[in-house]
């Protein structure tokens, strides 16, 4: 496992320079490198053979978390370890923290970024799942200067596939702050602790002034198709107070409507069982966090 020849390496210090470099290369020649905790694996195994690497580590403007009045804007180059420590994620966005805290290992979290993870969109990845449940928006700039904002539902297209084109750079991931109480949670189960999820589930609930659920979003991963919405599980939660019957109806609905594969890690039945147990836990945690 070793990289093939890499003809050019650039470390630009502005987004403009990145866009210029993208424009100056033919399609398929250049690769944007964020934290590299997935992309370097693909480069070493020669699944990717970029002629030109554009290292985004020099882009200081992409390394900040902006806690604005109505939105939380997370720069694409913010690392997992920084998400875990950020107090800006404490209230509505704890689900993203849950996900970031258990990605890989300490060394991976010290280097891997939110932007890298959502753009790579691995078949079993925690961050895209949490971003999908939290209804994140991806802010991109294209090499022709076009600014695009793509919501998570339209961004994640399948394993290793997103709506980002090769001429785009991801600038940030933003989340709308809820005006009423809301809460979120994420949990996964893997073959060993903090391994890739065999099943990972993220839940987001928004409560009205009476404490009943007026909006719910559930996303899961581990079914072989990348981060996916589980809308069937959302309906039973609407109007509920997070009681056990509603939560059970939600997880049963997810199981009835999802294509859970059997593979070397788990059988389809076992995945359904994981959806029931992890699903119930994350939905309840989201309700509890929204209530406090």
């Amino acid at each position: 496992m070793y990289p093939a020849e890499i003809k050019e390496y650039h470390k630009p210090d502005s987004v403009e320079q990145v866009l210029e470099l993208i424009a100056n290369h033919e399609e398929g020649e250049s690769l944007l490198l964020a934290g590299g905790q997935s992309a370097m694996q693909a480069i070493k195994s020669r699944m990717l053979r970029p002629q030109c690497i554009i290292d985004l580590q020099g882009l200081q403007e992409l390394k900040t978390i902006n806690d604005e009045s109505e939105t939380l804007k997370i720069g694409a180059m913010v690392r997992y370890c920084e998400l875990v420590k950020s107090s800006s994620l404490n209230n509505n966005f704890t689900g993203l923290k849950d996900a970031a805290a258990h990605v890989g290992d300490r060394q991976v979290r010290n280097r891997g970024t939110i932007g890298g993870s959502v753009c790579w969109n691995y078949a079993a990845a925690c961050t895209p799942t949490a971003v999908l449940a939290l209804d994140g928006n991806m802010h991109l700039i294209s090499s022709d200067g076009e600014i695009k904002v793509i919501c998570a539902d339209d961004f994640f297209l399948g394993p290793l596939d997103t709506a980002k084109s090769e001429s785009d750079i991801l600038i940030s991931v933003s989340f709308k702050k809820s005006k009423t109480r809301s809460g979120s949670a994420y949990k996964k189960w893997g073959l060993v602790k903090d391994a890739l999820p065999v099943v990972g589930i993220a839940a987001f609930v928004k409560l009205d002034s009476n404490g009943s659920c007026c909006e719910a979003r559930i996303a899961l991963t581990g079914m072989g198709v990348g981060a996916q919405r589980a809308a069937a599980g959302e309906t039973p939660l609407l109007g509920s107070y997070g009681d056990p019957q509603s939560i059970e109806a939600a997880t049963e609905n997810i199981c009835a409507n999802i294509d859970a594969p059997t593979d070397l890690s788990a059988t389809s039945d076992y995945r359904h069982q994981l959806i029931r147990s992890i699903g119930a836990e994350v939905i309840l945690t989201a309700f509890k966090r929204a209530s406090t």
Partner: protein
Amino acid sequence: MKNIKLTVNGEKFEEQIDNRLLLVDFLRDNLSLTGTHVGCTYEGVCGACTIHLDGDAVKSCMLLAVQADGHNVTTIEGLSADGGLTNLQQAFNDEHGLQCGYCTPGILMNMADFLTENPNPSEEQIRHGLIGNLCRCTGYVHIVRAVKKAAKMLKDSAHEDRT
């Protein structure tokens, strides 16, 4: 080929290197700092090549050497500023936190960073912190014990410094 300038263990280096050279091989082959080990043929799973990049524990097989241009790298050879044993190294010695020793440099580099962030770690936190380092000899019991002891030694020496 690219010219890089970086600081390793406090010493400045300037070298002309291939873009595809991994940082771990640059450290081992170009600078002869062979304390940083390759345990998994660069697959990024064993943690034996863990070093500090600007103070953060990272796996040096997951970076190109050109990415370290302008940065500060510390390897196991530079963990102790005075050449003696750090508290962490002494604790591994006292508690026999190793058998064959192949994974030890990576574990020490990760745990040195871990202890600066978690000065009073629980056993669960230590075990969670060790996920990125594989040890195929010890079963981790002595390693966890050594990290716990190091945390206490660091706390005691900080206390002595104040009094």
